[in-house]
């Protein structure tokens, strides 16, 4: 590599760092003040792109950029006022769920408004050419982008340091109750912060259109990039976000420049994992102030009453006789529901009693599925052995990843689980020779005696119910109590002799095992698997199931999995915009039933 090409790669890195920084700065600002992790931030970026592409033919590119940014900012203000404002007092996870729902709705809105095809944007008038740098041609527009990052950083810095608004934002970031008691109206403050964050995301998207087309898939891609940048830089730190955007922009640019382009999918997550292990609060972040009274509000899991147990046994028995009454489609749907219930309960075990939020639980599900496929197809073992041994793939990954994850807590832990899931996904996605790459594996059929739908249903039923029962039983065993003690008060748990980290690690592996079993069951029920089995959307599905059902209920995740799987299956058949329907259902539930479905049942059964 010559010095000139190093310079060019460096400039390329700077140019992509700019738009990365714009999105991440907005995300960081919103998180800092409202403590909401806005999953829909990538969707706002996507809207900025589409809006700019749509506006450019009428007003020209240079007007379309600020107009698109303002439109997205205004949308942010509306979303905050109508939705998020109701959720500031709600548990963190419910807020997450609501922003997931927005992702679904915004994606389908874009599909409806602009169609499924990628849209090419115009080039920037006046900056169509290229400048000669070290004997090569470098686009003029990229020079402009390179300047945008520092300009926005300086403007934000002035805004936060020199204005009363900025002072109030910084005060509320640190202690919103105190700011409130001093007469600061949080609604205006939070609303304006959210609008500004959305505006930055929209601006980032609009500025990107001369470089790449607007696509529907960009939302989750951008949000995971932005998460990485924000976490590496330190949550809530704008200069940290800038530094991290530069770091990641450069590393990606050099990966491409050096010919390791397949490594770019994972490299930022590797960087994040390294940074989080070395500096748990990011490069420029500070240890988050402990949330006052956290844990005290988490209701204990009561032992289920005799009546509730009888009801559960009755449900299990009813499931046993279903094949006698019905076949075909019902059995396929119930098989799906059962194995996703197992998956959801394993995620619930991790998040609820374990207190470890995971954005990447699909990794263990997917590894179970791929384990089964690989054992059957590559190692040519029998189906029974493949089913039994496949979850060990998930266990192995959970042992390794968990060791790192339990060193962190809260949102940082969640981000690290996302990073590991993304790394796993990109390995599977790119290793064509072994995992089949993006095509996945086909021909994973169960042995002859299980090939019937009924037989496989019974296997799934028995395995899922046994797994769910085992996890529920463990909640009331000393291990379960130790986990909950560690969640509610790590210091006190430590002081009475519980090795909190070791317990969490064990909990992480335990949850991974059952997710892996669910994945293995899934592989044999479908006959084929693709990298989607362990991609981010699958993890999101799991979170939605758990939160729909209710995090603080025992049986909630089962009902959540049933409702979600049924909705996905029935709505998706007849309607192109099924994601938006699911999103709308989630929003309604979040606002109307904040405790999840399980809480309705619990309210009925208690007294």
């Amino acid at each position, binding site marked *: 590599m010559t010095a000139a090409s190093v310079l060019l790669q460096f400039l390329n890195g700077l140019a992509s760092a700019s738009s990365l920084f714009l999105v991440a700065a907005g995300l960081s600002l919103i998180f800092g003040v409202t403590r909401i992790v806005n999953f829909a931030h990538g969707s706002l970026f996507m809207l900025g792109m589409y809006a700019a592409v749509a506006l450019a033919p009428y007003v020209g590119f240079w007007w379309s950029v600020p107009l698109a940014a303002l439109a997205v900012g205004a949308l942010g203000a509306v979303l905050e006022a109508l939705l998020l404002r109701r959720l500031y007092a709600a548990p963190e996870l419910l807020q997450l769920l609501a922003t997931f729902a927005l992702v679904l709705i915004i994606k389908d809105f874009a599909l409806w408004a602009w169609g499924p095809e990628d849209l090419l944007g115009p080039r920037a008038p006046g900056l169509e050419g290229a400048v000669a740098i070290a004997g090569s041609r470098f686009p003029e527009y990229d020079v402009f982008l390179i300047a945008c990052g520092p300009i926005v950083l300086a403007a934000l810095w002035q805004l936060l340091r020199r204005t009363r608004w900025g002072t109030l934002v910084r005060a509320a970031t*640190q202690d919103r109750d105190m700011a*409130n*008691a001093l007469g*600061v109206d949080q609604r205006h403050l939070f609303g304006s912060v959210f609008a500004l964050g959305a505006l930055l995301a929209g601006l980032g998207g609009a500025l990107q259109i001369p470089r790449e087309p607007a696509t529907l898939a960009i939302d989750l891609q951008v949000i995971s990039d932005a998460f990485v940048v924000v976490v590496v830089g330190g949550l809530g730190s704008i200069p940290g976000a800038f530094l991290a955007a530069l770091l990641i922009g450069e590393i990606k640019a050099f990966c491409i420049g050096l010919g390791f382009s397949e490594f770019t999918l994972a490299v930022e997550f590797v960087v994040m994992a390294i940074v989080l292990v070395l500096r748990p609060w990011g490069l420029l972040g500070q240890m988050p102030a402990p949330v006052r009274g956290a844990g005290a509000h988490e209701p204990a899991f009561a032992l289920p009453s005799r009546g509730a147990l009888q009801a559960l046994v009755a449900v299990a028995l009813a499931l046993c006789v279903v094949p006698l009454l019905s076949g075909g489609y019902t059995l396929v749907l119930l098989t799906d529901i059962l194995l996703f219930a197992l998956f959801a309960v394993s995620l619930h075990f991790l998040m609820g009693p374990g207190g470890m939020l995971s954005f990447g639980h699909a990794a263990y599900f997917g590894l179970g599925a791929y384990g089964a496929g690989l054992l059957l197809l590559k190692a040519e073992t029998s189906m029974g052995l493949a089913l039994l041994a496949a979850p060990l793939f998930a266990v192995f990954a959970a042992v390794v990843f968990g060791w790192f994850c339990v060193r962190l807590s809260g949102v940082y832990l969640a981000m690290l689980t996302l990073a590991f899931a993304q790394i796993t996904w990109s390995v599977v996605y790119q290793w064509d020779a072994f995992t089949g790459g993006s095509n996945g594996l086909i021909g994973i059929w169960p042995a002859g005696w299980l090939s019937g739908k009924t037989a496989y249903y019974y296997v799934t039923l028995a395995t899922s119910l046994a797994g769910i029962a085992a996890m529920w039983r463990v909640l009331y065993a000393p291990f379960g109590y130790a986990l909950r003690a560690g969640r509610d008060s790590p210091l006190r748990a430590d002081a009475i002799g519980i090795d909190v980290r070791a317990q969490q690690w064990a909990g992480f592996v335990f949850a991974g095992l059952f997710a892996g079993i669910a994945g293995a069951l899934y592989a044999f029920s479908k006959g084929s698997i693709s990298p989607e089995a362990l991609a981010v959307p699958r993890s999101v599905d799991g979170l939605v199931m758990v939160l729909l059902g209710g995090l603080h209920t025992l049986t909630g995740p089962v009902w959540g999995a049933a409702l979600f799987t049924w909705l996905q299956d029935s709505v998706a058949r007849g309607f192109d915009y099924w994601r938006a329907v699911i999103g709308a259902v989630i929003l309604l539930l979040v606002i109307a039933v904040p405790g999840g479905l399980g809480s309705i049942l619990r309210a009925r059964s208690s007294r």
Partner: protein
Amino acid sequence: MLEVRGLSAAYGKAQVLFELDFVAHAGEVLALLGRNGAGKSTALKRIMGLLPPRTGEIRFGGARIDALPPFRIARLGLGYVPEERRIFTDLSVRENLEVGRQPPRDGAAHWTPDRLFELFPNLGRMQDRLGGRMSGGEQQMLAVARTLMGNPRAILLDEPAEGLAPIVVEQVALAIRELKAQGLCVLLCEQNLHFARQLADRACLLEQGRIRASGTLEAVESLYAMV
């Protein structure tokens, strides 16, 4: 000025305040005396709207405030200085004051940073220092000054002398006397009798969430020694 009737409060299912009644007038210091855990801080938080409303009626300047959010209560001219001080550690002294700033209010003194630096000369010498780099005493003064920036008509003080050196305690007492002389209504939570005696006009004795006695400080004092 501040009227509390039948005030109760609970954390979850554990009730900690039972039917409190008291009135504090302009230009006087009313002390809420009580041991640790008697419910003093909870009463202040409840008045300030920082705990979810339960039974009871709170009036400030004649208007009901028991269902208002904290910022509305603050904007009516009721200031709050919490026991933990809760200084914004990432903000400088001037910025901390800026957060507390409210428009001038009829019938209340109009505070500016410069006037506050006269009241607390220490703060004037460290205007650009970050809150996190200040001593406990300096933070306490900043907490009071920050609340005064809202030009309050009444102020809730939660154990302002706790953990401070005697000389700093003296300065805090001086400031409170000055505020009282300007006609401010002060509700002072205290377990240090010696400190309360210097300042309070009247007192209520709080014990296990109930008012045991109220009246002149001397009358309450003898009971306090026994609880």
